[in-house]
C-alpha cells in the first residue's frame, strides 16, 4: 500500500521540482504584490479571513487589488463584480492562446488547470511551451499551484499586519501592481514589432480610459493593437521575408 505511494511520488517528484523551479520567479514577484493586496484589503475593511479567502477562491492579483480599492471607495456589489469581470476578460485571450497546446488533456484536468491561469503563470507556460514543449500534467499543475500558495501566504501576512501599518503610502505598496505589469511586459517582448504593439496598446488604452471612463479600455485597446500586429506582420513578410 505505502509502496505504491512511494513509487508514485518518486515518479512525480522530478516534475514537481522542475515545475516549482520554473514558478520561482513568479513566487518572488507575488510576495510584494500579495502583501500589498493584503494591506489594502484590510484597510478597506475586509477581515483577515475574507481577505485570505479571496486569494483562495478568486486568485486574481490585479482584480483583487482593484476590488480592494472599490470596496474602500464604498462601491456596490454589482460594480465590483462587473469591473472584476472586465479586468479579467483578458484571461480569456490568454486561455485561448494556451488552448492549442493542451488539446490532449481531459476536460476535468483543463477545468482545474484553468482556475489558476494568471498573467504570470501564462507567461511561464508560454515560455516553457516555446522552449521545451508541453510538460506533463504534474509539472503543469505545479507551475500553477506554487505561485498561488505564495499569493495566499503573502496576502495573509499583508492582511495580518495591515492594520498595524500607519502610512502605506511611504512604502509605495500601490506601485506593486504597475511594476508587476512592467516586468510581465518585458518578459513577453522578444522583437521590435512587439515594442510597437505595446506602445500602440498603451496609448489606445489611455485614450479609451480618459474618454470612455470605463474599464473597457483594456479590452478595446488589446483587440485593436493585436489586430494591427497581425496586419503589420503580414505586411512585413510581404516586403522583407528575411527580417524579423
Amino acid at each position: 500500500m505505502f509502496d505504491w505511494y512511494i513509487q508514485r511520488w518518486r515518479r512525480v517528484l522530478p516534475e514537481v521540482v522542475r515545475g516549482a523551479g520554473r514558478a520561482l520567479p513568479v513566487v518572488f514577484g507575488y510576495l510584494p504584490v500579495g502583501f500589498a493586496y493584503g494591506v489594502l484589503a484590510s484597510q478597506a475593511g475586509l477581515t483577515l479571513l475574507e481577505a485570505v479567502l479571496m486569494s483562495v477562491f478568486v486568485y486574481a492579483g490585479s482584480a483583487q487589488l482593484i476590488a480592494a480599492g472599490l470596496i474602500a471607495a464604498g462601491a456596490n456589489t454589482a460594480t465590483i463584480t462587473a469591473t472584476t469581470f472586465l479586468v479579467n476578460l483578458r484571461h480569456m485571450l490568454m486561455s485561448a492562446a494556451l488552448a492549442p497546446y493542451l488539446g490532449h488533456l481531459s476536460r476535468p484536468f483543463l477545468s482545474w488547470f484553468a482556475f489558476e491561469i494568471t498573467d504570470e503563470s501564462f507567461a511561464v507556460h508560454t515560455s516553457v511551451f516555446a522552449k521545451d514543449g508541453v510538460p506533463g500534467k504534474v509539472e503543469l499543475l505545479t507551475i500553477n499551484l506554487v505561485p498561488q500558495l505564495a499569493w495566499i501566504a503573502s496576502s495573509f501576512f499583508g492582511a495580518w499586519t495591515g492594520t498595524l501599518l500607519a502610512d502605506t503610502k511611504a512604502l509605495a505598496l500601490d506601485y506593486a501592481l504597475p511594476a508587476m505589469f512592467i516586468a510581465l511586459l518585458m518578459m513577453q517582448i522578444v522583437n521590435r514589432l512587439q515594442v510597437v504593439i505595446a506602445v500602440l496598446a498603451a496609448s489606445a488604452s489611455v485614450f479609451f480610459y480618459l474618454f470612455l471612463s470605463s474599464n473597457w479600455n483594456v479590452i478595446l485597446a488589446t483587440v485593436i493593437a493585436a489586430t494591427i500586429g497581425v496586419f503589420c506582420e503580414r505586411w512585413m513578410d510581404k516586403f522583407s521575408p528575411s527580417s524579423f
Partner: protein
Amino acid sequence: MAVVTYIPRVLPLLLIARHSLPGPVIRWLKYVPVAVLASLLGPTVLVQGEVLAINSGNHFLWAALPSFLVAWKTRQMFPTVLVGMAAVAILRFLGL
C-alpha cells in the same frame, strides 16, 4: 468575483482545446499578451486623477524608467517590483 474571474479562464480551454485554430487566429493570439499588459500599464503610469499626467509630479511615471531598465536587463519580476516600489518611496520621501 470567483465566478466571473473563472469563466474567462476556463471557457476557451474547454471550447478550443479540441479543435485546431485557423492560422490568422493563432497569429492574433500571439500579440494578445503584449497588448493586454501594455493596456493595463498605460493608464496606471500616464493618468493621475482622471487626467493625462506627463509631468514632473507624476511619481509613477518617473519610477517606470528604472523599473523598465531593470525588467529589460533581468527579465524577472522580483527585482523589478522592488526597484519600482523603492523609486516611488524615494520620490515621495523627497517630496518631489
